[in-house]
C-alpha cells in the first residue's frame, strides 16, 4: 500500500509499505478514504516528539471503510463506513471505565503518562497512522462508530480530533454565562474553541494570533473579537487593558508547543529541543487570565520539561485544566451541533492534498502558506 513515512525532522515521503495485519482478535483493518493533517502532526514533523522512528506513518485523523475484522469483533462489519477517534483505547481499564478514553492504560507500553494515539510516535504506543491507504485499528469494538448517513466526509474527519478538541478546550474553561474568554491560537482548534465558548454562554470572546487571515476567520466564522499580537509590544498588557485591568475570566491555550512570539522560547523549545516546545502561549494565558480564573490547555506539549510560569499560576489561584481529548465521549453532543449547524467545521477546510503530495501538504501547513487552515489528505487520488 502507499503510505506517508517520516524520514527525519522536516522530511517525509510516500512509500510502498506492507498492508497492516490483524495483530489482536479485536483489531480491524480500515481502508482510509479521507485523512487530515493536524497541528499536532507538526510537532512530530519538526522532530519534537521523542521516539519518532524513521519509517513511521503519521495521521490520527481519518475515516474509512472496514476491510477486515479480527475474530472477536462484534460491533463492526466489513464494508462499514467508520470514523475513528484519534485515541486508541480499551474501554475497560480503570481510566476508560470512567470515561478517560484519552488516558487508557492498556494500549501504550512505551509510556504511562499518555494514552495510545494513531501515528503519533512510539511515545504514544508505536501505532502507524492513517495518512496511508490502510490502517490497523485496535479495539475495533470500542473506538470507531459508523458514520451517520447525514454527515459529510469532511465533517466526519474533522470530528475525529479537531472539533472535539476545540469544544473540549472551551468546556475545560468551565465557562459560565457572561464570562470573558480569550483564546490563544486561531488554528482550527482555537477557532472551534472560540465558537464553542459562545455555545456555553460567554459574554465576550477574544482570539489572539499573528496570522491575519486566520483572525479574519475568527471574526467571521467564530464571531469573535481579535488581537494580532504582532501589532503589540506586549499582548498581556493589551489583554489587561481590554478587561478593566482585571484579566479575562477564562484563557484557552490552543497553540501548544510550536508557539511563536518570543524568540528565545521558540529557539530553545522548538529549534533546539531544550524544552518540550515553547510555552509562550501558555504563559500568556496564565498572565492574561484574572486571579481565580481558569486556564484551559489543549495545545500539546512534549514530555521534556517546559519553562512554565508556575509561580504566577499559584499566586493567582488559577484553576488549570487540560487533557488530550476523550473524543468519543464528546461525540453525541457534537453530532447534534454539527447536524443543526451550530458548528460547521467543513467550512474550515482550505486544502486537499493527494497522498502522493503529502510532503507539500506538510510544508504548506507548517509554514502557514496560501491561507491554510485545515489541510486534508486524500489517499489514492493522485
Amino acid at each position, binding site marked *: 500500500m502507499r503510505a506517508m513515512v517520516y524520514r527525519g525532522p522536516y522530511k517525509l515521503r510516500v512509500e510502498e509499505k506492507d498492508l497492516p495485519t490483524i495483530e489482536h482478535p479485536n483489531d480491524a483493518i480500515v481502508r482510509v478514504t479521507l485523512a487530515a493533517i493536524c497541528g499536532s502532526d507538526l510537532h512530530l514533523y519538526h522532530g519534537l516528539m*521523542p521516539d519518532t522512528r524513521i519509517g513511521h506513518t503519521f495521521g490520527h485523523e481519518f475515516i474509512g471503510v472496514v476491510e477486515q475484522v479480527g475474530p472477536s469483533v462484534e460491533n463492526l462489519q466489513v464494508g462499514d463506513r467508520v470514523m475513528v477517534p484519534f485515541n*486508541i483505547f480499551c474501554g*475497560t481499564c480503570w481510566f476508560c471505565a470512567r470515561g478517560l478514553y484519552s488516558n487508557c492504560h492498556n494500549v501504550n507500553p512505551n509510556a504511562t503518562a499518555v494514552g495510545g494515539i494513531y501515528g503519533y510516535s512510539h511515545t504514544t504506543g508505536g501505532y502507524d497512522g492513517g495518512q496511508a491507504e490502510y490502517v490497523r485499528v485496535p479495539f475495533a469494538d470500542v473506538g470507531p462508530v459508523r458514520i451517520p448517513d447525514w454527515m459529510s466526509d469532511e465533517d466526519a474527519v474533522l470530528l475525529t480530533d479537531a472539533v472535539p478538541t476545540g469544544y473540549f478546550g472551551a468546556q475545560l474553561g468551565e465557562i459560565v454565562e457572561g464570562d470573558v474568554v480569550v483564546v490563544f491560537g486561531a488554528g482550527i482548534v482555537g477557532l472551534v474553541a472560540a465558537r464553542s465558548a459562545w*455555545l456555553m454562554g460567554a459574554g465576550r470572546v477574544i482570539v489572539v494570533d499573528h496570522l491575519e487571515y486566520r483572525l479574519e476567520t475568527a471574526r467571521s466564522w467564530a464571531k469573535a473579537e481579535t488581537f494580532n499580537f504582532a501589532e503589540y509590544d506586549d499582548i498581556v498588557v493589551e489583554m489587561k487593558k481590554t478587561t478593566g485591568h482585571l484579566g479575562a475570566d477564562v484563557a484557552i491555550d490552543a497553540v501548544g508547543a510550536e508557539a*511563536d512570539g518570543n524568540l528565545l522560547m521558540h529557539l530553545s523549545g522548538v529549534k533546539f529541543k531544550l524544552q518540550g516546545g515553547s510555552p509562550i502561549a501558555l504563559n500568556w494565558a496564565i498572565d492574561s487570565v484574572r486571579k481565580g480564573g481558569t486556564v484551559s490547555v489543549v495545545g500539546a506539549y512534549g514530555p521534556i520539561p517546559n519553562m512554565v510560569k508556575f509561580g504566577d499560576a499559584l499566586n493567582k489561584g488559577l484553576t488549570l485544566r487540560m487533557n488530550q481529548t476523550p473524543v468519543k465521549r464528546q461525540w453525541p453532543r457534537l453530532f447534534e451541533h454539527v447536524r443543526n449547524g451550530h458548528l460547521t467545521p467543513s467550512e474550515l477546510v482550505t486544502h486537499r492534498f493527494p497522498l502522493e503530495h503529502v510532503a507539500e501538504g506538510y510544508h504548506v501547513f507548517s509554514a*502557514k502558506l496560501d491561507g491554510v487552515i485545515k489541510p486534508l489528505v486524500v489517499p489514492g487520488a493522485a
Partner: protein
Amino acid sequence: MAYTPQKPPLPETTEQLKARIPFWGVDLDPADRPSVPKLQWQEDLSGAHWEVPDQQPERHGPRERSIEHASITPVFGTAQPLHGVSGAIRRHAYARFSEARLAHWLLLIAGDRVEATGAHLRSFATLRPDNPVTETGVLAEAGAHPVASRRGRVDARHQTIDPVLVAGPWVAGAAVTWLGLRRVVRAVRR
C-alpha cells in the same frame, strides 16, 4: 483608579448576543456538557464485551516498555521495531530510566537523531536515496504565494533558520565526503 466589586460592563447585552449569534447559549448549563463530571462510570464500557482484554502476542521479540508499567500492555503498536545502534540506545532509555527522568527522554531523542543519520546514509545505497528537496515539500512554495503569505508575521525571522537547520547537515555531509574523496584520489595518485 481604584478597583471596585463590579465586573467591568460587557460590550454587548445578552439580548444583543442572542440576536447576533444564533447558537449563543445552547450549552449554557455547565453540568450538562459532555465529559462532565470528569470521572463518570461508563455503563456500556464503550462497546467492550470483556473485562480483561485478550493479550496481543509479541511477534517481534520482547517489546520495549516503560518501567512504570507492570508488564507489556494487552495491545501495543508493532510499527518500526527497534533495530541497530539507535535501537540499543532506545532500549537502554526504556530499561534504565522511568518517564520521570530527563535522561529517558534525552536518550530517546539521541536515538532519533542516530537513526535519522543512519537512515539517510543507508538510503544512498538504495535506488531511492533521500532527497531533501522533495522530502521537505519546499517545491510547494511556488504555488503557495510564498512572499504574500509571510507578510506581517512574527515567525518570518526564525523561518529563515529552518533551511539552515535542515540543509546544514546535508551541506556539511557533502563537504566532508568531497574532501575525503579528494584525499583518497590524491593518495592513490601519489
